[in-house]
């Protein structure tokens, strides 16, 4: 299920379906397959707020659609 569809709660990242640029950018922020993240805010429009390794991140919707979670 894409991250953009999750309302709240903890999920595990399965796959990131993006170019190298996007993957390389997310990696050092702790967003990579196998990591657990928490969805703090999802208004189903505009960016999301997620919690990764204890810090809050804003994630654009386009990006969230390309992150597969379970």
């Amino acid at each position, binding site marked *: 299920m894409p991250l953009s569809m999750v309302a709240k709660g903890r999920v595990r990242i399965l*796959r990131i379906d993006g170019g*190298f*640029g*996007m*993957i*390389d*950018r*997310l*990696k*050092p*922020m*702790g*967003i*990579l*397959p*196998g*990591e657990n993240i928490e969805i*703090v*805010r999802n*208004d189903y*429009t*505009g*960016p999301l*707020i997620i*919690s*990764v*390794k*204890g*810090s*809050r*991140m*804003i*994630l*654009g*919707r*386009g*990006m969230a659609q390309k992150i597969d979670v379970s």
Partner: protein
Amino acid sequence: MGKKILVALAGNPNSGKTTIFNNLTGMKQHVGNYPGVTVERKEGYCIHKGIEMRIVDLPGAYSLSAYSVEEAVARNFLVNEKPDVVVSIIDSSNLERNLYLAVQLMEFGAPLVMAFNMSDEAKARGYQFDLEKLSGAFFAPIVETVGHKQQGMDALLDAIVSVAEKERNPRTRAVVNYGREIEEEISNVVEALKSEAPPGGYPYDLRWLAVTLLEQDKEIEKEITTSGVKDRVSQGIARLQKFFGESPSTEIASRRYGLISGACQEAVRSTVERRHTTSDKIDNFLTNRILGLPIFLVMMYLVFMLTFRLGEPPMGWIESFFAFSAEKISALWPAGSESAVKSLLIDGIINGVGGVIVFLPNIFLLFLAIAFLEDSGYMARAAFIMDRIMHKIGLHGKSFMPMLIGFGCSIPAIMATRSLENRRDRLTTMMVIPLMSCGARLPIYSLIIPAFFPQAWQAPMLWLIYSIGIILAVITAKILRMTILKGESVPLVMELPPYRMPTFKSVLLHMWERGWLYLRKAGTVILGISILLWAMTSYPGLPEDHLQRFEQQRNAVTAENITQEQKNERIASIDNSQAEAAIEYSIMGRIGRGIEPLLKPMGFDWRIGTALIGGLAAKEVVVSQLGIVYSVGEADEESESLRNKLIRNYSPLIGFAIMLFTLISAPCMATFAVTWKESGSIRWALLQFGGLTALAYLITVVVFQTGRLMGVGL
């Protein structure tokens, strides 16, 4: 004094790196740019126990992968300048993510000291660190610091000195164990590197080089020219890809995090999980889906009101100061004498530079407010709120702030685009910023609107002009994103730091840094342009026979039998005609005359033409230049006589056309210079200049001609 050591500070954005830099160096710092890029380079000095240190604040980075310009700059610095000590500054209340960069620094082979910054916050959140264990796991001394309270600075300096003095011996054990499969490929690549090393060897630690190549780092790949290594690397990547089912770079990153979380599990105890709870509560309100936007708009309104209200008195002082100096300098020459030097000093330099310096209080106050919003953490929320809207025009949330600052002045606005990592986003934002009607254009509107429009129409007119700018910016941005700046818009990902009370010192320092940059850039360019414009309106002077004719007229008036008052009036009017003739005769007047056929379709005559040329230096010059060509002496936007002259000579439609043209056309010279510098190429500045002027011409001609045909505002 003995030796001098080079110390680099590295860390994530928001790790408090700059605060520590300021603590260590005090005011003894120097801000410049890295060659070729617009990343700020901050350097300072510090002496500790007789050892002189040169301290460089590297740009904030999340990794050494050279994904962004900042990261590339940080990495190149480490490669080329080989600092004696690298201080890895870590937000210890956010340990795991911050340690990622630290691990990369260790792998790179940098002589490391770790500063666990914000340790008070970490403690408040219930974290307890076993520093000895962590230090062992990461092969580096750890010092706890609290940057904004200046705690731990001496201990940090001690650690830096001891690492600098320690003999550097190659690390015997790898920092990260990447597991059998990857390790095998690493040693294969290292072997290949050894056998095909260039003369003098590689400037990198070979293991680091091998790992980075397996991560498919584009920059480092370019440095490998030998086919043996290239083949080895691509074979390795292919094999690992098959084994893991995904690119090895992801697995490599996972292993780094594995090491970090392993160490943290052993050495960090968390008693309570309280982080963010307060921040989250505030966020529920401030970033609320419905309330977020109105709150943001109110906030921005307050910022602008503050900027202009509080800026008013100091602006008055600056104005009187310049008027006073002009008077004093003028008094150095005997009354009535015409000296070129005097005219240069007063009309050229004092008026030109004064016109820019006068905006300084506004600029500084605007920067102060922005620094406060940034340091408090609200700016990241603003990006969150605006992202939804900005996305629709092909930009993202972070573009909004620079555009907003553009209503104050384009120069700081263009400098503020530095926060956009993606070059396409940044250039698009930069290109459209001049369409945000800046503060210097306000005097033009305040002169023209009351002249041509009835009271009830005045406020809507002003609103209309601003709106036209915004709408054009949106359209232009969209077009740029679809044509020359095409490409996937880089999605937004940014940290949402917890809310913090900004410290007085850091806010002031932020303000000063940016304000000084503005002053330096604007100051030098404007000074040059002012002198040029002055020369263009003063030379060549009227020929002798013309001068004599005006002199004769004056003499005739003096001889006439009328009251002194009438005489003065007549003489003043002759003076005016002479000044007007002089302008028409000067280079500027000739240019104005020359371009008149071009201006005609917009309804402009040569007088407006020269005013618009003056506007290239700074937009507000349009007003004073109109004053000069209409020879009404000192003109300002309140000037009644200038308004009367305008009403007599032009129609409301032309008045509107003037406003439209000054809104859209060629940004001022200082903006041109800043765009040139910030985009790294004169081509962008020329495109902005030419494109906007062409757009302005097109729109103004269409509006004027349509208006004329329909008989509106004649």
